[in-house]
């Protein structure tokens, strides 16, 4: 099996769905001739034509709104935000319309909004954010963020087939850095299910996206010291796979919640609260959150490095918690 990057895996998944279902089409800025700012949709225009690969004006609200309208007519739009940061320009269409249609008037809005997110690429305050918590706070949406190429392909396919609106965060730093062999054949990953990325005994780190790889590196370092860390990769942030999280914590009795997004109001608070509410008797220490500080994402390398949660910080906090 060939090695496939995270980016190529997303492209494969979209391509397979477009081949399978003539109602699937792409809409976004610079996705056609240019192939997308990150080249996720490269080659799609040649293969599927202008009808199914729609280059739009710079109008994020119109992109999302048009996707919703097309979905009412039976199409399966996959909208691209050039950067997740710009999703705020389409925010109202997502949170006030797409998310509420089924509940209000029984009108499903099966759209996918792809949002390249995350730091570590020196993109600065407008090209590096992780805005997933805004959407996790919105009933009616599903929020997905894969960490591996395998999951990226399986989840984008599930997102396209899902009958509810899905916000699909794809971490930019993983696009070309993460590579693995994935099966040629058809497979999907169910939305709403976490997975154990690495088994461990002494503590659990619950994380997602690029931080799964930070956790994996930290787990190696800790193993050398005799600390066994389990890694739970959430994969879906809404709905949260509470059972997988709780069963890991019940096993290890200690939990760290790790994410790249800023701390206050982040997904980590929600996970942490659920653990203390529902697995309190199993805990042998406080639930620890590791996240970016409450600042915009800075540009200059020393500042950005200080901003992003890293292996050293996780190892240090894990040692502390393991000894607690």
């Amino acid at each position, binding site marked *: 099996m060939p090695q496939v990057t995270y980016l190529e895996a997303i492209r494969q998944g979209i391509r397979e769905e477009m081949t399978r279902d003539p109602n699937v089409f792409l809409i976004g800025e610079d996705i056609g001739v240019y192939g997308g700012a990150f080249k996720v949709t490269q080659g799609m225009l040649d293969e599927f034509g202008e009808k199914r690969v729609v280059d739009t004006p710079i109008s994020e609200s119109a992109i999302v709104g048009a996707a919703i309208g*097309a979905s009412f007519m039976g199409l399966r739009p996959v909208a691209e935000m050039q950067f997740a940061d710009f999703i705020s320009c389409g925010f109202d269409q997502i949170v006030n319309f797409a998310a509420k249609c089924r509940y209000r008037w029984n009108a499903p809005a099966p759209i996918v909004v792809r949002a390249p997110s995350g730091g570590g690429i020196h993109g600065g305050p407008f090209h590096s954010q992780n805005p997933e918590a805004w959407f996790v706070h919105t009933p009616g949406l599903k929020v997905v963020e894969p960490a591996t190429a395998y999951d990226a392909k399986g989840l984008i396919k599930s997102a396209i087939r899902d009958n509810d609106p899905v916000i699909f965060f794809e971490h930019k730093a993983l696009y070309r850095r993460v590579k693995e062999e994935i099966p040629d054949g058809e497979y999907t990953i169910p939305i709403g299910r976490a997975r154990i990325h690495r088994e461990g005994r002494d503590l659990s780190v619950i994380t997602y996206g690029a931080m799964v790889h930070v956790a994996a590196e930290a787990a190696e370092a800790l193993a050398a010291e005799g600390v066994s860390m389990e890694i739970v990769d959430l994969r879906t942030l809404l709905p949260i796979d509470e059972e997988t999280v709780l069963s890991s914590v019940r096993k290890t009795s200690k939990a760290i919640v790790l994410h790249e997004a800023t701390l206050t109001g982040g997904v980590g608070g929600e996970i942490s609260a659920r653990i203390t509410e529902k697995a309190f008797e199993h805990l042998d220490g406080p639930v620890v959150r590791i996240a970016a500080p409450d600042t915009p994402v800075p540009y200059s390398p020393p500042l950005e490095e200080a901003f992003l949660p890293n292996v050293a910080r996780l190892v240090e906090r894990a040692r502390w918690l393991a000894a607690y």
Partner: protein
Amino acid sequence: MFDVTAPVLGPQETSSISSTEADLSRKFLYYLLLQREVEERIERKLYRQGKILGGVYVGRGQEAICVGSGLAAEPGDVLFPCHRDLGLYFIRGVHPREVFAQYMGRVGGLTRGRDGNMHMGDLNRRIVAIISAMAASVPVAAGAAMALKYQGSRNIVFNYFGDGATSRGDWHEGVNLAAVQRAPVVFLCNNNQYAYSTPLEKQMACRDIADRAPGYGIPAEIVDGNDVFAVYEAAMRGAAHCREGLGPYLIECKTFRMTGHSAHDGGDYVPAHLWAEWGAKDPIVRLERRMIENGITSREEIEAVYARIRSEVDEAIAWAEASPLPDPSTLTQGVYEEPA
């Protein structure tokens, strides 16, 4: 044809300019009177009796816009009403019972108590529910029209909004996208000269809403929004333009909101002479006069239609009041797709 229990436009029957003026006039009259009567009851009776809570927005004085254009639409065309376009729902076969139940938060309403007032829709009747943020429906309408084109359908989209909505970015993004994509949307603006309490001159520095169209490379026309025939004919022109694949078409209907923004708003900020001036242009009075002058109907016949509507509305209100309130145990249902 005045039986409100059946959709007036069946699947095989389409409105067209071949309809005789008499037939069309009767349809216009019926829907105008029905909207007026249902909204009178909602705003001036049920709301004041405390039977309807929350916001109440009516189309008094501007009903000709939704009725005239709604009857120009083919049954497969997709409608995006604004909050003063109740007539569109009736044209698509929504029963007044469902409307009253909607306003009263009952299970029998189109949203089963999940949303109130005009925030209702039904994809089976090709009506997309209002999005409360003004103009948010415009990009959605553009996308629906793009999809119809994608599917090779001859159907088109009618998208309604007021003058105030054209101040929002969504309006401009949506119209521009529709124009670039040559999407088949008839954009219908009810320019009723007030956005809540804010008069037109504080909304925009151009004179007409139609002035916005050249900036997007689309045609526009201005019609007397209180003349139901003028609106119908303009909508037919716009629809023909769209069906020919020529892209969107903007119709600005000049009218006046003969009420406050909502039931709690007396509209004290409106100069008194405007009420008088526009009250004299009431679209129902004008249609009735035209029908009588052309020998299509008589005052007695009109009174008979009115009486029938009143009794149907009485029955619809009784039905809605008997419709149960939603069971709180259903609160969390339907946020996501659920297993069948």
